[in-house]
């Protein structure tokens, strides 16, 4: 009975100043949607970096001019190093096969190439990743390693890519969090303003409630519910939008461009988070308005 009264009053207010309500709802929607997209990007970059890390630690590319003897000699040298856990030789042909595999559906691009420009390489896995730099350094001046003069770009360590990706992830995380925080503040202020308007619209009711002895919480509840509703409706919208985007675009990306290794976010937790976030924004907004504008 009480609950129905509160809900009724809250819905009444929402409908009565629907323009402000819609503005607040849309802000919540956008902020929660950006939060979802941010989480999506973050999760994928995390996957990508951990993939890179486990995939490969050192890659040594060999000049096309090297003889088979020189190549196998280098292989023996590597195997003899105490830091090495395992080593894997990738021939020119295998390198091409791998490339083909990762570009499934677009092989015609590769057919246009004359011959096979890919160098053979050794993939080296270490017992302890912290020794990457020391081990990699041993190949910098090796004549059969495909270094351009003055550089050592024939030796690639997984760490470099990982560090770069991690750095980018870090920036995206900070930027995204900042953006979401700004939007969250805007949502709270807009919701608070909506509630302020409905406090004003219902000042007669509030006055009468006080006079006849309604408890303070009884007076507050409809306004709090209005705020929470606003937040929840916005969050639901964000959820729907996010799921649509995920279905239409992300699945497409995953299917069409498998080499990106994109993945969907664990949906249940994200959606739960969005809903709770929306409700929280709503209650903070109405709390703010009640503190400032509802004198009891």
């Amino acid at each position, binding site marked *: 009975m009480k609950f129905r009264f509160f809900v009724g009053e809250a819905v009444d207010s929402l409908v009565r100043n629907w323009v402000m309500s819609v503005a607040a709802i849309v802000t919540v929607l956008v902020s929660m949607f950006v939060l979802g997209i941010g989480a999506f990007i973050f999760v994928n970059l995390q996957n990508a970096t951990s993939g890179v890390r486990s995939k490969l630690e050192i890659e040594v590319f060999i000049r096309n001019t090297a003889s088979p003897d020189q190549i196998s000699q280098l292989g023996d040298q590597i195997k003899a190093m105490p830091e090495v856990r395992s080593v894997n030789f990738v021939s020119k042909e295998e390198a091409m096969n791998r490339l083909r595999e990762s570009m499934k559906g677009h092989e015609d691009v590769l057919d246009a190439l004359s011959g096979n420009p890919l160098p053979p390489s050794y993939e080296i896995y270490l017992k302890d990743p912290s020794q990457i730099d020391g081990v990699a350094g041993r190949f910098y001046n090796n004549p059969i390693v495909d270094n351009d003069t003055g550089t050592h770009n024939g030796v690639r360590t997984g760490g470099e890519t990982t560090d770069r990706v991690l750095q980018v992830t870090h920036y995206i995380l900070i930027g995204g969090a900042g953006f979401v925080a700004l939007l969250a503040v805007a949502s709270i202020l807009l919701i608070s303003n909506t509630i302020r308007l409905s406090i004003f619209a219902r000042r007669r009711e509030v006055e009468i409630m006080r006079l*006849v002895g309604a408890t303070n919480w009884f007076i507050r509840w409809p306004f709090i519910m209005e705020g929470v509703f606003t937040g929840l409706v916005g969050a639901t919208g964000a959820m729907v939008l996010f799921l649509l985007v995920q279905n239409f675009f992300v699945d497409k990306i995953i299917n069409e461009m498998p080499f990106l290794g994109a993945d969907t976010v664990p949906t249940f937790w994200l959606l739960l988070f969005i809903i709770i976030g929306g409700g929280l924004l709503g209650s903070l907004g109405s709390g703010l308005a009640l503190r400032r504008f509802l004198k009891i």
Partner: protein
Amino acid sequence: MIRFENVSKVYDPNIVGLKDVSVQIERGEFAFLVGHSGSGKSTFIRLLLKEFEPTKGSITVAGRNLGRMRRAAVPHHRRNIGCVFQDFKLLPNRSVAENVAYSLRVTGQPPRSIRRKVPEILQLVGLGEKMSNLPDELSAGEQQRVSVARAFVNHPSLLVADEPTGNLDPDTSVGIMQLLYRINRTGTTVLMATHDREMVDKMRKRVIALEEGSVIRDEDKGLYR
């Protein structure tokens, strides 16, 4: 029922609402509070409702000291005081019955007792036929009856009326006064702030006269003067 002991109320900045007022009103009494605008009548009533605290002195209503009352207890204190105002304070978008029911609902009464009490009290004030009308469709006198019905529906032990006839013509005022008189006869204490000289003189009840925040006269069966 009501006891003011040396009560003063000073509003910022230095505007005196009440000055050292000591008054006692017994249970079941009917008392008029008279005086010019700004003489302190409204301050008196708002102090009773604990809308704010006195600057000095102590106030006891129905045996409870308001100064020692916790904030959370204030709503329950107000449920024991029915209020009627000059401007009726009705909700314009709700019917007569809903207006009365509203005050019962917001104090958490069960729907069943609301459905029983509302028609009963509206019959009592003579509006049994107009329960589903909106306040706008009623005359001023009828609107004030609705507001009296709302104030009395819980049978509070104290009914406070702040200029209840201020917006009504003399004939209609008589009707409202009769209603308040009948309520008083049920044992309810009635305190009425008013300007209405004729009414006060006709009723011959206790008159407490305020001027510039002080009680200048307090007599049984008094006149407005």
